[in-house]
């Protein structure tokens, strides 16, 4: 029973534990403004990680999200110059979706392994963003697009609301639509899914387009936050997103995982960054500590799983870990 709880809520417990420690170490940590600050910093990673979760549940991976963030922001501001911010934002989202379509097409029809596909498009898309902008940042400090990154609804900044909408939306997609069920089925057993009449290519393209479009959205938010689009932005963001997914208990083998787990994972990373900054820890040590936390989390998860496997032998009665969340 305890083990099952740990397995289901382990990462949440971890988050609370880290939060408690930080609030004891720094009295600035547990303030409303700092919490909102953390949530705003987490929002971009959480939006990207939501798409990453869906891809990883199918057994894939998307390394191109960081480059896509840059490409989406740059294309949005370039298009916005001529046609206005709304068309520009649509173009940014579209650019992200197109990158996803390319990834999905290569994986589904070209049978190129997702790691290789997205490793290649990561470079190609980064190059594309640099070509588009000639390597220069595009600054635009006025216009309605800034609303995405800088406005607030009441006390809550728009990026946080966007993050909440994306998390709810992808959760809904996974848990309450048949395509979401297909995502789990494809990741759990691709051949069985195919023999049940599910189009593997269709699902693969769908998840990469979703991940691409969400990266595009993240790119828009980032550009709006900074009042500019940079072709060099977003480097390494894929690693933060993957880390959030893994911390959230999603298996890189595919077939299981939840958006709530990913959200908790993203907040663990955000809270660590914030806490280290509050305590003036050198960014060099921050990197080491972040990596250590990820390894630790996965190690604990393995141990708990092993404990569960041995504990299950006696009672066949149900552990519903991993299936589509039924919240």
């Amino acid at each position, binding site marked *: 029973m305890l083990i099952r709880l740990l397995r289901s809520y382990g990462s949440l417990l971890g988050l609370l534990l880290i939060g408690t420690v930080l609030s004891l170490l720094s009295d600035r940590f547990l303030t409303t403004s700092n919490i909102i600050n953390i949530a705003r910093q987490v929002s971009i990673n959480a939006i990207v990680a939501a798409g990453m979760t869906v891809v990883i549940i199918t057994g894939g991976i998307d390394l191109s999200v960081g480059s896509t963030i840059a490409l989406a922001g740059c294309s949005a501001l370039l298009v916005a110059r001529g046609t206005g911010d709304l068309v520009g934002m649509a173009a940014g989202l579209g650019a992200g979706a197109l990158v996803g379509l390319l990834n999905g097409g290569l994986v589904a029809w070209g049978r190129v392994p997702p790691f290789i596909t997205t490793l290649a498009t990561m470079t190609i898309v980064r190059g594309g963003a640099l070509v588009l902008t000639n390597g220069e940042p595009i600054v635009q400090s006025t216009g309605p697009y800034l609303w995405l990154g800088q406005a607030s609804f009441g006390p809550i900044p728009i990026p946080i609301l966007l993050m909440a909408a994306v998390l709810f939306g992808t959760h809904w997609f996974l848990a309450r639509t048949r395509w979401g*069920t297909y995502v789990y089925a494809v990741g759990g*057993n691709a051949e069985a899914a*195919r*023999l049940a009449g599910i189009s593997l290519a269709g699902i693969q393209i769908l998840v990469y387009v979703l991940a691409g479009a969400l990266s595009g959205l993240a790119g828009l938010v980032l550009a709006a936050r900074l009042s500019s689009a940079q072709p060099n932005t977003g480097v390494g963001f894929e690693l933060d997103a993957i880390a959030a997914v893994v911390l959230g208990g999603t298996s890189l083998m595919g077939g299981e995982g939840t958006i709530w787990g990913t959200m908790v994972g993203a907040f663990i990373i955000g809270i660590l960054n914030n806490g280290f900054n509050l305590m003036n820890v050198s960014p060099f040590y921050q990197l080491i500590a972040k990596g250590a936390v990820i390894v630790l989390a996965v190690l604990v998860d393995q141990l708990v799983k092993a404990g569960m496997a041995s504990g299950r032998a006696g009672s066949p009665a149900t552990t519903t870990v991993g*299936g589509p969340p039924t919240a």
Partner: protein
Amino acid sequence: MDPLLVLRGITKRYGGVQALAGVDLDVRAGEVHGLVGENGAGKSTLLKILSGAVVPDAGEVRLAGAFLPTGSPRACEACGVSTIYQELSLVPSLTATQNIFLGHESSTPGRGAARRNAMRERASSLLAELLGETREGSMIDPDRPVRELSVPERQMVEIARALSRESRLILMDEPSATLTEQETARLHATVHGLRARGVSILYISHRLEEVLTLADRVTVLRDGRRVETIPAAEATLDRLIRGMVGRSIREHYPKESAPLGDVLIEIEPPDGLSVRVRAGEVVGLAGLVGSGRTELVRAIFGADRRPGLRVRWCGHVVQARSPAEAIALGIGMVPEDRQGQGLVLGLGVDVNIALPSLDRESGGWLSPARLRDLARPLIRDLQIRLADPSQPVRSLSGGNQQKVVLAKWLARRVRLLILDEPTRGIDVGAKQEMYRLMNQLTHEGKGILLISSDLPEVLAMSDRLYVMRHHRVIAELPEGDRSPETVMAYATGAVGATR
């Protein structure tokens, strides 16, 4: 002379299945000993015990008087027992020489380059000797990677590997299954050569004529027991077949024939006979493992391509290019490999049952309640035993898992069900339930295409029966002549194709 290998009372159970029940067997020095039996008769289990891959529950194995260590492939090899599996166990990227000495490089004296040269020379002379015995074929270059060699050449490398370890007993599992006539002749010459050197060979094959010509003595296994061991000179095809399938049709096939409806499907392969299934009918496909039954039904279901295959569905020519298209027509398939292809083990029973029906039953939205509503009547009708409909399929027993696969297609209300080995690996009680479900389905007007390697089962449960051999449907057995002997005679090629 004392026999080289002596088995006494070898017994092995896998869960509820008695794979071997007190088998005695002697293999003499310098003898080619044939081992035959139906699928599931216990041949592979016996082989695995001798090669050290499996530990018997009871019984003893002695080689030249000394107990053979069980459960350790390495120890068995060291004692002089080598195994040549049907799926060859060489490393494709290493050379012939490297493969021959893999794992016992240190048996060759010298160091570094000197040892490499010595190994190369020894490999070369072993391969030359083997080829010299066959007086045919060209020399195998010991420096070529194994992946560039043909299947018979790889077998030669495996045999050279066995000889390099001074094996006294070589176990061969269906070595001729994938060979052409000519290659088989070469293999036989090699086997004769090995016998002349005093090496004993335990030769497993489905090709009964081959066993009769090649072996000195033949042992017949059935249901994990030894039926008889006879000199090949005294054996006939008939006697072997009767020994292999001799059991009386068991009482426990509750077959009921249902009224027949229209023809649902006509399958016309490019060569051989065509196969027809009518509503309310169970049509059996018998044949040996590897005779192409699974490949044929997978092509019908759109899971694989098969050029030249024509399918008429309710009178219209159709071509399912994907399982989705076959399902849309009204075809469902329970695949041979239940866990690998039939189920998503980590997902709930209800999700698995609903999977093929979601596009039809739910629009786009889905709720846990709706899933349960879809699955509940089937869980009840099929008596799937579980604690909670959403529990992962992984936690169910084999028989209940198979019912979930069946339930998927009942939920989808398909009209033709392809059952590929539906009772493999499930216990007797679950088998009975499966048979009753088949009766129920045909009474509801569904057609069933049944593949089974369990001869009594496919004989008892089919209304009509076809036999496949070498990827062709070669015979439809008339009602009056449906004995296990006839089926085996067609399946093993003892009787030619009928038209």
